[in-house]
């Protein structure tokens, strides 16, 4: 703005930020039309507003952060349940090796206890889920998942994926960030029970999250197998497809990339997949993955000569 212009610059900032009323904005626009310095200033302000942008974020790191948050949320839920059952000391005993976590859980538990006074909102989980899962596994003889609880006298629970509680507990087990064993058994169970019921959204999302962000390669692989089994006869959800494409292009484990490719090959392909598959075909260091990508591209109707 030149020295000759005595108009209020703050009004231009507010106009550019869309913070003026219609009447005020119309008045300032008239002023801008008649003043060259104001027009230039408004132009520069719009550049200032758009010149600074937040840096991009890493989608994998975001997925990991989300998964860790959900794991922590899952833990706090169980603590809440314990408080309602009057068994807080038992929780603290279980987390004794992790004093920071124990303290955190205690604070959440106390907070919940205070907050729940006079609160008539329903508990976050059903009464039958108010005990910690001790273990969950596939029972071949029964042909069902069996959930055993750590509370003496509590009967074990069995069922397949059509049982809402079993599906919920499987999901909880998958999100149990500090126990690879229970996640492994839960994934095996999901794979074995896949045909017993339509996959619940929550369960499907938990498995997709493992494909995206599970640090253990063996568990990522098993998560893909479970996903493959769950969606053997139905279309893959978009989230699951995305996770498989990311695994195919960037997972460090050859087995994981091969499993991702096999699962994608078994389902309908989309035109957008071709670019990813071409990239894999030309750059993956595993010959099986490269040839699998080429085969899938051929199935998509892309002539072999174009792929050479």
């Amino acid at each position, binding site marked *: 703005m030149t020295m000759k212009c005595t108009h209020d610059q703050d009004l231009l900032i507010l106009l550019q930020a869309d913070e003026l009323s219609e009447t005020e904005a119309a008045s300032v626009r008239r002023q801008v039309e008649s003043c060259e310095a104001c027009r230039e200033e408004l132009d520069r302000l719009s550049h200032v*507003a758009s010149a600074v942008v937040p840096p991009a974020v890493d989608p994998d*790191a975001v997925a990991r952060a989300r998964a860790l948050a959900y794991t922590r949320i899952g833990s706090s*839920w169980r603590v809440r349940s314990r408080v309602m059952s009057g068994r807080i000391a038992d929780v603290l005993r279980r987390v004794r090796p992790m004093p920071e976590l124990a303290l955190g859980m205690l604070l959440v538990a106390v907070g919940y206890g205070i907050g729940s006074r006079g609160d008539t909102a329903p*508990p976050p989980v059903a009464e039958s889920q108010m005990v910690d899962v001790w273990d969950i596994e596939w029972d071949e003889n029964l042909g069902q998942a069996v959930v055993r609880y750590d509370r003496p006298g509590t009967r074990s629970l069995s069922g397949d994926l059509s049982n809402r509680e079993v599906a919920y507990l499987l999901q909880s087990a998958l999100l149990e960030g500090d126990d690879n064993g229970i996640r492994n058994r839960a994934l095996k169970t999901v794979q074995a029970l896949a045909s017993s019921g339509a996959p619940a959204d929550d369960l499907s999302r938990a498995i997709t999250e493992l494909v995206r962000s599970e640090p253990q390669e063996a568990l990522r692989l098993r998560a893909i197998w479970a996903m493959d089994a769950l969606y053997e006869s139905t279309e893959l959800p978009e989230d699951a497809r995305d996770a498989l494409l990311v695994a195919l292009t960037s997972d460090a484990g050859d087995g994981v990339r091969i499993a991702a490719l096999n699962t994608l090959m078994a389902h309908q392909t989309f035109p957008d997949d071709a670019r990813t598959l071409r990239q894999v075909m030309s750059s993956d260091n595993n010959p099986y993955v490269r040839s699998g990508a080429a085969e899938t591209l051929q199935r998509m109707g892309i002539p072999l000569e174009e792929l050479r």
Partner: protein
Amino acid sequence: MGEQPNRMGSRETDWVEQAQRGDTGAFDRLVRENEAGVLRAISGILGRSPEVYDVYQDSLVSAFTKLRGFRQDSSFSTWLTRIAVNRALNQRRKTRNAREAPMELAEHLPADSRDAASNLEQSELRRSTERAMESLSERERAVFVLKHTHGYKLREIGVMLGCAEGTVKNYLFRATRKLRVVLEPAYRDL
């Protein structure tokens, strides 16, 4: 953008109510629906830093534990962003001396300006912009980011930061003027 309490209509209301009853799936849908915006706010304040993901994680846990008290008198997006912004500001205060450049000069500087300036000048301009962003106070930075990358109204930003709309307006004026001065050379010859 701006405050639209029911911009997702009954769908968001339903999800919030389900999440308040303990439905993790509903909470996850709310989170994913608003994820990009919340991350823009956090990274706008903290810059290119691994702390962005820690703050995001903590924000989600905090949101879930506070969810029962959320009365839906603002949109879920505004409520979650408010939690995230305050956590990001706290984090920034803690690590003020160790942070990296908080912002990038956008690709959308005028093409003419990019073409006209030498690489040296561009580097200098980038450094100047980064310095200018560094010179903004936490609140000036937060207001500028929430206004210009999210389109929130100053009134909403005031609610998020716990200060009056007039104060927010002053933060916006100060931040804009500082950046305006730094970016002046880039546009001087247009």
